[in-house]
């Protein structure tokens, strides 16, 4: 018991809070709205949460080194458009189309990383600029999503894979579990992960200890771009066709999921398992408000207030004096 208590660091405590928040919202939902915590409803929420989980994974990686990725909405949207326009709905072109969509994410992420790490452009500016670049390219090249190939659907096998089940569990959730495993192993069991936390806590100390701060930063932004593309692929595979503005809600949701998940916005502290809880919390709040037929304005107001309340509980910075 004492061993267990000693292992409760502020970091793990925050993960505990994140799960407590998720469970708390679900409990409130189950009480005020019968059937809210049923398996069918939970499964639907988990699938919605998985999309936030994908963008949250990328956002968390850059937040860990004190950065931020504002290019997510249009990387997501761009990857979704690239997937359908290159596959043209044909099964034979699925693999190259998937690779092309992921390559878009990786390329934008790499550009972000190079700009931030080598050219010293502030992360907010670099990723905001790249979001604009991607938005312009997506809209311009697809002529506002009116081009000939823009009407194509996602190849059927991918659609069936994402909405289907494997051993009784929705594949989308297995995919999320895979992402969670990958990010957790990467951050906790590899040298690279150690370096990420070192850079996040103190870049100068990490540099003096021989960590290539720039290489780590570039790698993280690239991964962030890839995860945004993964979210785009999953969303378009789920819905069948891309739309303009598909990624817009995911910028703020990714940041909210990361901080509700107990990751410090200043960098250096946090684990992906918390972000998983954070994503579920966000979806549970919105679902509950919709189930209660709260009008749109009320949803926005309550959503903001709940996030503020969560931040007040465990998202505060230490006092300076």
């Amino acid at each position, binding site marked *: 018991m004492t061993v267990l208590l000693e292992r409760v660091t502020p970091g793990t405590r925050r993960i505990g809070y994140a799960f407590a928040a998720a469970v708390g919202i679900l409990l409130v939902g189950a009480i005020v709205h019968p059937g809210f915590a049923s398996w069918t409803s939970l499964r639907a929420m988990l699938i919605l949460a998985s999309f936030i989980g994908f963008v949250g994974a990328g956002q968390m990686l850059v937040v860990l080194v004190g950065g*931020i990725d*504002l290019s997510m909405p249009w990387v997501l949207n761009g990857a979704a458009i690239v997937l359908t326009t290159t596959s043209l709905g044909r099964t034979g072109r699925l693999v190259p189309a998937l690779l092309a969509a992921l390559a878009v994410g990786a390329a934008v992420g790499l550009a972000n990383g190079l*700009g931030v790490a080598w*050219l*010293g*452009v*502030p992360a*907010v*500016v*670099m990723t*905001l*600029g*790249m*979001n*604009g*670049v*991607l*938005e*312009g*390219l997506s*809209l*311009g090249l697809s*002529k*506002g999503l009116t081009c000939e190939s823009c009407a194509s659907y996602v190849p059927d096998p991918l659609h069936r894979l994402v909405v289907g089940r494997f051993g009784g569990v929705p594949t989308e959730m297995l995919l999320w579990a895979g992402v969670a495993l990958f990010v957790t192993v990467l951050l906790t069991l590899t040298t690279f992960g150690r370096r990420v936390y070192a850079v996040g806590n103190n870049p100068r100390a990490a540099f003096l200890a021989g960590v290539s701060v720039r290489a780590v930063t570039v790698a993280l932004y690239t991964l962030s771009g890839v995860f945004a593309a993964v979210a785009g692929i999953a969303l378009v595979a789920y819905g069948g066709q891309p739309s303009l503005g598909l990624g817009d809600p995911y910028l*703020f949701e990714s*940041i*909210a999921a990361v*901080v509700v998940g107990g990751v410090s*916005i*200043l960098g250096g502290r946090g684990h992906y398992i918390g972000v998983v809880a954070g994503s579920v919390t966000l979806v549970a709040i919105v679902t509950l408000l919709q189930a209660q037929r709260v009008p*749109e*304005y*009320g*949803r*926005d*107001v*309550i*959503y*903001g*207030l709940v*996030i*503020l309340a969560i*931040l*007040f509980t465990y*998202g*505060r*910075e*230490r*006092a*300076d*004096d």
Partner: protein
Amino acid sequence: MRDRLRGLLTWTPSMLGYAVLAATVTAYLAVYTTSLGHLPTSFDYLSLLNTSLPLIFVAIGQSLVVLTGGIDLSVGGIVSLCVAITAAASGASLPATIGWLLVVLAVGAACGAVNGLIIAKGRIAPILTTLATLSVYSGLALKVLPVPGGSVAPAVRAVLTNPNLPTGLIWLGLAVVGWLVLRRTRFGMRIYAVGSDETSARAVGVPAARVKVGVYALSGLCSGLAAVFYVSTTTAGDPNAGAPYILTSIAAVVVGGVAFSGGRGSARGAVSGALALTLVIDVLFFAGIDPLYQSLFQGLFLVVSVLLGSAALLVRRLRPRGGTS
């Protein structure tokens, strides 16, 4: 005299804004004249100024916040809320309209002050606080004005953004003068002190928490002003009107040379940044570029101007005795 000259030539952060603005004005004149065959008329300048006034005000507020090392994402929500109130109250008589405008400004300042209190007293990071309040204020805007609509009293339009008389120029001048006065006050100095090094500022007795509350309240007030000018130029209200201003105000501040680390830059730079960003859209229009590509060029414009700024800073550092320290 030589010292003064050198002082003028020394690179300061806001000069990035002036340089970028000069470049965009040149580009604007070039594409306008080549596509229409004559120089822009005073009407063109005036409508440009009137359309850029809302962004100019939001950018001034944003620059104050960024100077303290913070960021205000809720400007979008505050502008939306204030636009909604202004438009919803448009049917009132003239004295009542003036009263409503004052209410709008008070609401803006109050929303900003709430941000400041949560950030300074609650110790929640600015980006997270304003992300949450953005949602709250946008929701309130939808409550006040569920669908786009409303109008504006002609008298208000004639005074604020008269399409035929350069009233916009007067308001722009007042905004800049307001900033010049503010930065010379004790409060103005404290903004820079908190932004440069908060711990040191506290140590010498600067009430950092009060300064932050004041700065966010001012940012809210600026968003309120922007909303009034928005309704006056577009003559209609939209409960989502503020959303674009979140990113464009940050872009204007950055192009204007205000450093994200805080403590460096000025609101004058942000004003030039806002003007340049609005001008770029016209440049693209007269250059015959498909409007779908608009954000591509805005994004490139943002990144390239920041890179130019860092390059200029680098050159200055490499040159011995280049700066007046």
